[in-house]
């Protein structure tokens, strides 16, 4: 009831201001709520610097530095022009846009000197905006619901993880004890079996290493042959520079410093490319990036999987049993430890105020733009892939920014003559979690948008609803003023809607 009362007051006051002011030239560019300020004979500049007479209001000559006396003309650079934009939201323009021959207000009121005729587009524009806003509200509503659900799920999952973690830790403790006991016994048995076998083991192991090495050589060769034409050129160039360098090293001359001698050995085309690259930095950095990121990870994985004990065989049944037990419990221990470390790793992250970002953990999101595929893995990394093998590290997980509305990945691959790559991923409200947009506004500083229900915040919804109410309210007033009543039903529906959407306070307006 209270709300309805307020609403009618608001409509009345709007009606009042409109009916009283619309034709007055001297009040041009003044917002209705400010009109009273200008009703006196002597008016103060808002910054208090001086006074001016009513005749000086909008007389196309600037008296107040802050533009108070010229809201409706272009005379004061700091003036603001208020467009009513009936049918849409009112706006405030820089005075530089008044009578400059370009229609800025949808009602065309900023161009009144006759040089250009502006069509009133407020009705269409307003409707479009309102429809858009309504859609946004609808989406937000659904999104907020999904978000709530996800927050609950995340909370649950986190506590589950925590519980699991404590169970695992207890298990680890007992397993550790068991393994140690078995180990002692196993060692006793093995001592008895002598050294010979041990040496044989070692030999086998080093053979295995060589083999592994050989395999990787083959694999990498294959990869290189699959690279795109561009890469080949890049590689050839790098290699040729590389060779130049090594040559001068072999010759042991002192020309390496200025690099000029090696330039003489290059082909004309190579020189051209090399000189061009000073300005562009192209290719001098890219080859490096392809490898370095992948290296460390894969190296780690490899060492983890390596079997640690040999397959020596003896005929002692007791020894076999001990070995079996030892192997089994070691495996259990290491799997428990693995799980512990992955859980600890996960839980140590800042997962948001309510832990809501738990759901993004371990996931990756991709989008393709031109020839690049961008891949964002929250809490891990962001990469740009070109084809199957050309990967550029855009950054490693750093943190959330802007009160959890953006994710920052930094310290990616270096840029020639510039910073290391980084990417900021802004979170937008959306019903599905997907990467929608990637941009590089500054070289090597990327910007992406991830639409996700997690971006649908209740607070934001309130703001949008407010905005919508304001425009609907104005629309309603317009109906009153112009007599363009819709059906009774329609109007009631609108009022009902407004009342329903009314949030508690009115402060934000």
């Amino acid at each position, binding site marked *: 009831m209270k709300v309805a009362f307020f609403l009618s007051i608001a409509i009345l006051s709007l009606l009042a201001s409109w009916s009283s002011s619309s034709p007055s030239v001297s009040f041009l560019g003044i917002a209705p709520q400010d009109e009273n300020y200008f009703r006196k004979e002597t008016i103060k500049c808002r910054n208090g610097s001086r006074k001016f007479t009513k005749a000086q209001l909008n007389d196309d000559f600037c008296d107040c530095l802050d533009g108070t006396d010229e809201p409706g003309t272009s005379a004061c650079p700091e003036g603001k022009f208020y467009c009513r934009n009936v049918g849409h939201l009112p706006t405030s323009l820089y005075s530089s846009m008044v009578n400059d021959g370009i229609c800025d207000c949808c009602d065309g009121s900023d161009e009144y000197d006759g040089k250009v005729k502006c069509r009133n587009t407020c009705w269409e524009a307003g409707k479009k905006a309102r429809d858009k806003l309504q859609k946004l509200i609808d989406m937000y509503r659904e999104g907020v619901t999904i978000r709530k659900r996800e927050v609950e799920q995340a909370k649950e999952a986190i506590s589950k993880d925590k519980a699991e973690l404590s169970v695992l830790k207890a298990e680890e403790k007992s397993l550790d004890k068991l393994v140690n006991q078995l180990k002692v016994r196993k060692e006793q048995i093995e001592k008895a079996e002598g050294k010979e076998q041990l040496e044989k083991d070692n030999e086998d192991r080093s053979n295995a290493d060589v083999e592994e090495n050989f395999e990787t050589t083959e694999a990498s060769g294959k990869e290189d042959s699959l690279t795109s034409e561009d890469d080949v050129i890049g590689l050839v160039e790098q290699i040729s520079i590389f060779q130049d360098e090594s040559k001068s090293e072999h010759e042991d001359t002192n020309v390496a410093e200025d690099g000029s001698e090696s330039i003489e050995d290059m082909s004309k085309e190579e020189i051209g490319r090399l000189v061009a690259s000073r300005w562009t930095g192209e290719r*001098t950095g890219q080859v490096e990036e392809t490898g370095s990121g992948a290296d460390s990870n894969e190296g780690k994985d490899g060492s983890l999987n390596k079997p640690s004990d040999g397959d020596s065989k003896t005929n002692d049944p007791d020894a076999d049993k001990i070995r079996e037990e030892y192997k089994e419990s070691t495996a259990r221990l290491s799997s428990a430890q693995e799980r512990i470390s992955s859980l600890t790793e996960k839980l140590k992250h800042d997962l948001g105020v309510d832990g809501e970002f738990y759901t993004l953990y371990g996931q990756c999101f991709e989008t393709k733009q031109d020839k690049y595929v961008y891949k964002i893995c929250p809490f891990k990394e962001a990469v740009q892939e070109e084809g199957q093998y050309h990967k550029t590290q855009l950054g490693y997980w750093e943190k959330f920014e802007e009160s959890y509305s953006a994710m920052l990945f930094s310290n990616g691959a270096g840029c020639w003559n510039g910073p290391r790559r980084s990417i900021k991923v802004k979170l937008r409200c959306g019903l599905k979690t997907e990467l929608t947009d990637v941009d590089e506004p500054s070289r090597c500083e990327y910007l992406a948008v991830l639409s996700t229900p997690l971006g649908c915040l209740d607070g934001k919804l309130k703001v949008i609803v407010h905005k919508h109410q304001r425009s609907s309210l104005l629309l309603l007033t317009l109906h009153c003023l112009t007599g363009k009543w819709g059906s009774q039903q329609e109007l009631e529906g609108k009022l009902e809607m407004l009342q329903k959407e009314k949030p508690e306070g009115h402060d934000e307006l």
Partner: protein
Amino acid sequence: MASRIGGCRRPFLLLFLLSLASQTAFSWKKDEFRNCNQTPFCKRARSRKPGYCTLIADQVSISDGLLTAKLIPRPIPNQAEGEEDHQQIAKPLLLSVAIYQGGILRLKIDEDPTLDPPKTRFQVPEVVVSEFDETMLWLSRVSTETLDGDSAPSSVVYLSDGYEAVLRHDPFELYVRDKSSKSRLVSLNSHQLFDFEELRVKNEGEEWEERFKGHTDIRPYGPQSISFDVSFYGAEFVSGLPEHATSLALKPTKGPGADDSEPYRLFNLDVFEYLHESPFGLYGSIPLMIALGKSGKTSGFFWLNSAEMQIDVLAEGWNADSGLSLPSDQKRIDTLWMSEAGIVDAFFFAGAGPKDVVSQYTAVTGKPAMPQHFATAYHQCRWNYRDEEDVENVDAKFDEHDIPYDVLWLDIEHTDGKRYMTWDSVMFPHPEEMQKKLAAKGRHMVTIVDPHIKRDDNYYIHKEASEKGYYVKDSSGKDFDGWCWPGSSSYLDVLSPEVRSWFSDKFGFDSYKGSTPSLYIWNDMNEPSVFNGPEISMPRDALHFGGVEHRELHNAYGYFYHMATSNGLVKRGDGKDRPFVLSRAFFAGTQRFGSVWTGDNTADWDHLRASVPMILTLGLSGISFSGADVGGFFGNPEPELLVRWYQLGAFYPFFRAHAHQDTKRREPWLFGERNTKLIRQAIHVRYMLLPYFYTVFRESNTTGLPIMRPLWMEFPSDEATFNNDEAFMVGSSLLVQGIYTERAKHVSVYLPGKELWYDLLSGSQYKGSQTHKLVALEDRIPAFQRAGTIIPRKDRYRRSSTQMVNDPYTLVIALNSSRAAEGELYIDDGKSFEFLQGAYIHRRFVFSNGKLTSLDLTPNNKKSKFTSQTVIERIILLGYSPGPKNALIKPGNEKVEVGLGPLVFETGLGSSSLVVTIRKPSLPVDKDWTVELV
């Protein structure tokens, strides 16, 4: 898995690449460019001793209005036996002296064409304007006198009312002297260092090739250099010789105290990350030197020659052991000029003041073109605005932040694979629509068009050019093939008028697809830059139209390319639209075709500081429309540096922000609200002063005077200004002092002359002939209006200058000690050539005895007229004590109110104190009227 091998090799490669990158990316490649010692002609000339030349002037006579002579060796029997190296010539050289109106002497020395030289030596065509030839004075009389101590006579001819030219026969010497006092002004060969290597036919076994960094120059005509000494008498310092990143007054390069210096090199080069304070040549060359002496006496010397040139400024005492005696009562600066090829085609300018010399020089090479009005406003550039969306966003942001700008620039990435005059179809699928959107807001676009043409048979320009044989040839006669942005490229032979005409047509709307009338052009890399060529340029033995070797033409290549582009835009607009073409390379005469900028500078305080002497030197050399990249091309400026650069750049004649593609985005709104405001204010100051700038542009267009001037140009008798190249004048009414240090607390500024100066934005008064220590303000650099001047302004800012056309004017009258002031206002349509028919408004405003009068300066017999409805909305009086309440306007006897008002209309700029203002006089700008304070 694949990474094991790469893992061990790549770090090594990476390390190497990094070290390579650090070498190439952060240092200027000194050894990539030849120094004097690596340049045989320079090394030879520089090592000669005074007295080397033994030529004498023989058969001196007047013929065809010229003073002519033959230069022959002095017939002394035993000379050949002397141990010293002496000038040898096989055939006499022809010398001629021509005199032109206004105190200009032209000296030519060349081989005698009747004696069958192997080839005609190159004379740079189309630099001297045809109107100049018409001003030649027909000499009919020569007088002869024998100077003290001379055995042979000297021939004397008239030069101007105050000066005469003297040709001394033995030893050969030419100089300009004061008629009455007989004291010398400029002389050539006074130290007998003249040398002229005649073209020869190669003898068997002779080694003529020159090698540098793996490049071989076959030099089919052998050595052909020319060198000589030039002396400036009574000179305190010399200036000129752009383009170097050096001080305005040229420091000595040889002699006591300058032992290790290189000469000033004039050789157009694409120098990666150039250094400030270096005599090495940059992108353009103008062999013009101006000497200034006490009481402002000025002379000039210009050598029209486009081959590589090296010039030494010789420190006092350089010739201590020479036995030659020169008039010793005059302080003197000696210089040594060396060129690889060409002829002597030299101009002596008799002054008498600095403005006269610039006027004389631009009488020879042409007055600066009148620019498009929009081009005098602010330009926004970046390598690169990536796509149409980027362009649209940047454009919208300017509106959002209420920052005016007029031109958005697209660098090389907008093209389809660096094929100029094409568009990247993914990034710029709708170029016309994009330009039209900008044009709807009164804004323009500039695209880059470089002289290297991608060798791709599917590229229409290449296809036609190669079929028609329009490319520069290599020494073997094949199309020269060099490497530049697009990869393998050839270069249009723009020395040929036919090629230029053909290329001009390519700018037509039907030919340049996706271009619209609001699109203008930027020429870059036209030194020419060749990434795999010697010194990143074209081989000297490459061949041009008419068998001209590249060595002979080099410094003018970019000039002819700029000319062809500029003419292309004139053709495109049916001769009705002024061209706008920015060029990086330049030569004498470039001012007729467009503007230049100082190339790839760096975002540091030193480059900010260096920009001022660089632009001043360009201005002295005729190129009045120039600027430096605001913010610095390479590197990321700190916000403070960027703001200071905007504040200074707002006073550059050409005001453009630009940045390398690897730098962070730096559009004005990206550095927080405060910095956005500061940058907006700096740009606003430029827009406010646009009417004044345009008036000064017109002055430059008619007189040749620079927009941005050394203080000594306006105050030549104030010696305290001689060493000052950190402050400058804009026109004759405005003085600007940059702030070149980080977190400056104070800034010192010297204000010349006897009269007062008024702070441009606060109106505060400062005394002349004093250095003032001022508090360095965050929101502006010191700028002052000279007492006795009237500056026209427009105080309403718009999206772009286009929307300001009908906005009213403000006149700011700064009174001098006689309570008087004068100023001018020039207005035309801002784009067409109608002004040449008299279609312009030109007013002189004179204030004296409390009365302001507007006088018409347009000629009576104009064929076309320009009118305007625009009015003067405000007249501000600085130095006028408040009192009068009204002003009376005649005709009409209308009374208007006089009160107090702000000086500038932007909070924070200026001060809160109010100044005497005539409110709303609404005076028509194109009519005669008076306003009298009563």
